[in-house]
């Protein structure tokens, strides 16, 4: 099962040996806010803004796309591609999971 967003942030932060306070300083928020992100208890919305997620990814040297996806946000560059080629994504959306996995494997294998 995919990790939850807050849980993944906590895991990445700990792997870097950072406390909540240290991460908070790096991304310009309070340590209570970091705690709320990790415990998924933000007062407004389920996840932080896309900008903040990018800052977190940078501070933790993490995969920005992974974090954005966990936060159920579509990265800007992917949004742009969807809008540029809607027919491709419409077709992709019709495929079942198995076919999508096979397609991904074929793409990765080149």
């Amino acid at each position: 099962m995919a990790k939850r967003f807050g849980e993944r942030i906590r895991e990445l932060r700990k792997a870097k040996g950072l406390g909540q306070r240290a991460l908070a300083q790096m991304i310009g928020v309070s340590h209570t806010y970091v705690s709320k992100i990790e415990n998924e208890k933000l007062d407004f919305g389920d996840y932080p803004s896309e900008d903040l997620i990018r800052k977190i990814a940078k501070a933790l040297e993490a995969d920005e796309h992974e974090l954005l996806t966990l936060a159920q946000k579509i990265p800007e560059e992917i949004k742009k591609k969807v809008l540029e080629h809607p027919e491709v994504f419409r077709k992709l959306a019709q495929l079942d999971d198995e076919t999508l996995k096979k397609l991904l494997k074929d793409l990765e294998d080149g």
Partner: protein
Amino acid sequence: MTKQRLKYLKNEAIEDVTAQRIREYESKTGVTIAFPVPIEVIVEQVLGLDFDWDVIQEQPGEQILGGLDVANRKILLNEAHSDLFEQKPGLLRSTIGHEAGHWELDVDRSKASHPLLPGCDPGSCMANRHASKSDRLIEVLFTKAMGDERAYRVYKQLTAGQDAPEVRSAVDRYQSALLMPKWLIQAAQQRYEFTRWSDLYRLTEEAQVNITNLTIRLQRLGLIYLREGDKTIYRSEDEFTGQRTLF
């Protein structure tokens, strides 16, 4: 077998267990600790506890700074006092240390499959309080006020005539030993004159602890002697007695 009361847990045992936790952290991270002791990271990486914030219900006259959510292995900090914590980072650190001590020394971890230290008596100073946002019961300590002067006054009123300084709660001794390890204090003695308040305040900034916590720790280590109502810092009780004899 009769269990010892928690407050009688020897200072040496507490010094040993906090030193052990610091060594574990150092060996895990390859970092030698210095002031300020990275208590948050030690608690997370060595004790395996996480942090959470919530509003903790308080009874009249109480100041509950934090509690322990044993089942979820979380230290819960009282969001109602987040401004106070912001103004006094030392208070936040001592609260974290208290909860860590509570976890390590006296909580009933049969719930969490973790053994207690020998000689500990769970339940001697705990109560359950409600955390409103997450709607759960947490364990809180009555003795966590030791690191904060305002809370300390409330604590003194509530417990007047009870513990003598040397038998104050084990968790308080735990937090102060973790935040101010003996060897770092001894090293600081080379740089600071402990009988000068200005030096002690400089040390509080370096160690990120509050002044009450520091002076209690220095007294426990026998490095200073303070008398109630007297601002003079003596090196020892003997020094005070000697001075009194002179006049």
